[in-house]
């Protein structure tokens, strides 16, 4: 068992990698972020970003196959909140680039927004190979003073 984070907002969650698990992770994320001092708007946004990463794992990494787990780790400190989602499914060589919403609509696409949304809601989004065959989404959100002034996030609008 690892030690608790400085603000008490540390948590490790191991859960079946299914869409059914998304809401439990959403609720846990809202509570961890709130406990770590984020306002409820910001906590909701962080939870949506974590949900996008988890959906990516369920849908793309494990292709909706049953029987896989995902590990979600939260760590809060004075600078902000970091969330890692570890899995042993497929992962992309590089993250999808920015999106062209009008083009997606013209093509009647129903997806392609996930990574883009994560990037817009978080200060850092990365996917790393942390061990052979083990991929990890890393999401970070810094505290903003005063009270989330820059609500648009750090990613300049394309």
């Amino acid at each position: 068992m690892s030690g608790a984070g400085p603000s008490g907002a540390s948590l490790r969650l191991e859960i079946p990698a299914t869409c059914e698990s998304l809401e439990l992770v959403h609720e846990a994320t809202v509570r961890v972020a709130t406990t770590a001092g984020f306002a409820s708007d910001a906590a909701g946004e962080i939870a949506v970003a974590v949900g996008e990463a988890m959906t990516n794992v369920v849908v793309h990494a494990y292709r909706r196959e049953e029987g896989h787990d995902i590990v979600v780790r939260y760590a809060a400190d004075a600078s902000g909140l970091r969330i890692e989602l570890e899995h042993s499914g497929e992962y992309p060589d590089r993250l999808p680039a920015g999106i062209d919403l009008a083009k997606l609509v013209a093509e009647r696409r129903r997806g392609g927004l996930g990574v883009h949304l994560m990037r817009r809601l978080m200060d850092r989004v990365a996917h790393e190979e942390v061990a052979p065959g083990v991929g990890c989404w890393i999401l970070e959100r810094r505290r903003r003073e005063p009270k989330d002034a820059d609500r648009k996030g750090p990613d300049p609008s394309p």
Partner: protein
Amino acid sequence: MPDLEVATRRRGAVVVVEPRGFINAHTVHRFEEVLNRLAADGDARIVISGRSLSYVASAGFGAIMGILEEVRASGGDIRISDLNATVAHIFEVLGFDRLCQTFPTEAEAVESFSTAEAGGKSGDP
């Protein structure tokens, strides 16, 4: 406590869709079914009321993207009302505020279909 229920009601020539709960990759199929059925039936004037929505993941926006061209091709539109702060912010960072008009209230969104048939400016940018 169901995760998502999707209510629909008619307001003149407009259909109001009110998803109650949250929309993510687990629940989106119920939202998608309702939108697809409306598009297939030619119910092309659609207001989505966010009044009872706690949050929407990208899957929910995907469901709207998937039918928007079809709805507009048949002379209709999808307009949005009553978004809470979190949903409004996600709507904005995805660029949906440039794609669909939003209104503070359902009544204004419904009304907008009778004042201008299409392409008016957003009531709540």
